[in-house]
């Protein structure tokens, strides 16, 4: 990454932090997240907890174990309202399903800060939900960056004039971050003049990704790379590539920069991922919730900068 890019990133970070900063108050804020076993969300929770401590905010963090237990997460929203929480920071399991329970929070005058996965604007408009701000990474840009990096690697290996072919492993269709990453991947592939040989959803899961990638590799033995919408699916793709004896030679990239992906990069099995700064996302969530509680104006969206992680960064 270029030096100037870093300066822009640092400046953007400084501005967003300055935009949300204020002294603490002993306010009660709930962080409701998902996938408690995913290191990404663990880092987010830790970032939020540290910021809450620094601001003197009382943070109550609760989460559902899976990525997809919509009904249980809705229950958590209701439970936290009953506990008398004053503001909600939420990473929704479903960008559509979470709207209904949040409307009740809004009616109780509890401000809502949306982080990570953007609540569906259509559904929110339909039910009259207004969130204080959305704090999230630019998933499309992140996916385009890592996708372009993968295409460059493939180009270097290909003979002149040969068209690269890649597979895409998608997240859960209809969920905004999954759709944005898919669009980013597709844009990068199109920009490189490559072709998408196959594109399937593996619902963010490692095991399912292994099955899906195995089937896609069997059907398309000539592909040069696999673009995965998260690292957990990239791990599944690695297992599938291993089984077919193509590890190292096939370019695999992911998204999230989890520890297992870093280890895979050290072993040369994986080639790049995207760091989304989940800790910063959690911290910003708490700060903005406090601001919303004080009635201060917030921008509609607060972007969190992403960065490309390559094997050079983990050595």
């Amino acid at each position: 990454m270029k030096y100037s890019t870093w300066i822009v990133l640092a400046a953007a970070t400084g501005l967003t932090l300055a935009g949300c900063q204020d002294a603490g108050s002993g306010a009660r804020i709930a962080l409701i997240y998902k996938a408690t076993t995913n290191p990404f969300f663990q880092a987010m929770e830790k970032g939020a907890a540290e910021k809450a401590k620094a601001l003197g905010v009382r943070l109550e963090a609760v989460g559902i174990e899976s990525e997809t237990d919509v009904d249980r997460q809705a229950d958590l929203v209701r439970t936290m309202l009953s506990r008398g929480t004053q503001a909600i920071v939420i990473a929704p399991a479903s960008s559509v399903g979470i709207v209904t329970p949040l409307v009740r929070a809004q009616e109780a005058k509890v401000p809502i800060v949306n982080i990570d996965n953007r609540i569906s604007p259509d559904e929110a408009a339909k039910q009259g939900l207004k969130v204080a701000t959305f704090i999230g990474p630019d998933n499309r840009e992140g996916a385009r960056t890592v996708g372009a990096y993968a295409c460059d690697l493939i180009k270097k290996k290909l003979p002149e004039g040969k068209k690269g072919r890649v597979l895409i492993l998608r997240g859960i269709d209809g969920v905004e971050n999954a759709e944005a990453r898919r669009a980013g991947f597709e844009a990068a592939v199109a920009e490189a003049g490559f072709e998408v040989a196959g594109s399937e959803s593996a619902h963010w899961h490692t095991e399912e990704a292994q099955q899906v990638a195995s089937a896609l590799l069997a059907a398309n033995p000539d592909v040069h790379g696999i673009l995965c919408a998260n690292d957990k699916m990239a791990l599944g793709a690695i297992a599938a590539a291993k089984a077919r004896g193509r590890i190292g030679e096939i370019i695999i990239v992911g998204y999230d920069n989890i520890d297992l992906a870093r280890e895979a990069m050290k072993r040369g099995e994986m080639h790049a991922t995207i760091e989304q700064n989940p800790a910063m996302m959690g911290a910003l969530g708490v700060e903005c919730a406090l601001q919303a509680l004080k009635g201060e104006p917030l921008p509609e969206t607060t972007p969190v900068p992403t960065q490309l992680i390559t094997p050079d960064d983990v050595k």
Partner: protein
Amino acid sequence: MAAARLSWHRVAGGNAVADLRSRITTGRAFVLAAVLVAEIILWTLLSAIDWSTGTVHWPYFLTWDNAIDIGGSCAINLILGVGMTFAIIGGGIDLSVGRLIALTHVLLVVVANATGSFVVGLAACLGCGLAAGLANGAVSVRFRIPSFIVTLGMMMVARGLAMVAAGGKSIGSDFSPPLAVQRFLPIGVSLVVMIVGHVVLTGTVFGRHVFAVGGSAETARLCGIRVGLIRIVTFLISGLAAGLAGLVYWSRNSLGDPLAGDGLELYAIAAVIVGGTSLSGGRGSVIGTFLGALIMGVLQYGLHFMLVPTHWQWVIIGSVVIATVLVDRLKRPQ
């Protein structure tokens, strides 16, 4: 042999109210009610003190809002549990109901969105539950395949079909239930299901036949009971319960989520077992299942309310399931 017809007539001398009274004052239902009350007292006391500041807040757990939320969060398990009670007493088991929730409520949303009529969507939702129940029962009875296997297959079929119907992603519902419906429909449906289930099981000829078939199919056959027909109807009831649970899922989330209901069949079976219904069939009650589901639901809600980490919640809920059965076993040596 002249086969007896399926009969929904009241049993001569059978009295649902008297049966309920005797169950509450004696035996298992009494133990279950005591466990439930103990849980509520425990959460009320534990939550009264704010441990981080040392202050007392009252009432904190024992509020109408919490009661309504608990009712809402128990509703799906209650409804599935009542259907499961029929299937298990009749000597079977229904593993498909969890994933059927996904299929039925996705159909509700898809059909209602497409036709612009909620009633048509609801008909599709309940019709799908009944059709799946009929398929489970008919295949298992006609071809003598254990219902465990047939419903396991149906679970996978329902999972796949839910994805197909939803186009592989969550879909928003054009019909959004108003707040009052979101809050009270789950409670209303589960109460009606429980009362109707209890009356049918204890007060009708059909109910008696279910017990007879589950107790000893051979004896029941010799008595002229149409064993296969009774079994099929128990699966129809379980399928209808899955359809109603789908309606409740929609009312709580106004969403068509093809991944919904994962593992809920096991939760329902746990509620049935805690409620004292024998897994080998022929013995059990709807009231027991109702109390069993409430014990699990109040426990879970309280654990969330007290911010107990999710991983520990599983350990505690599992232990309480085993302990409740154990207390009952020790109280009445067999």
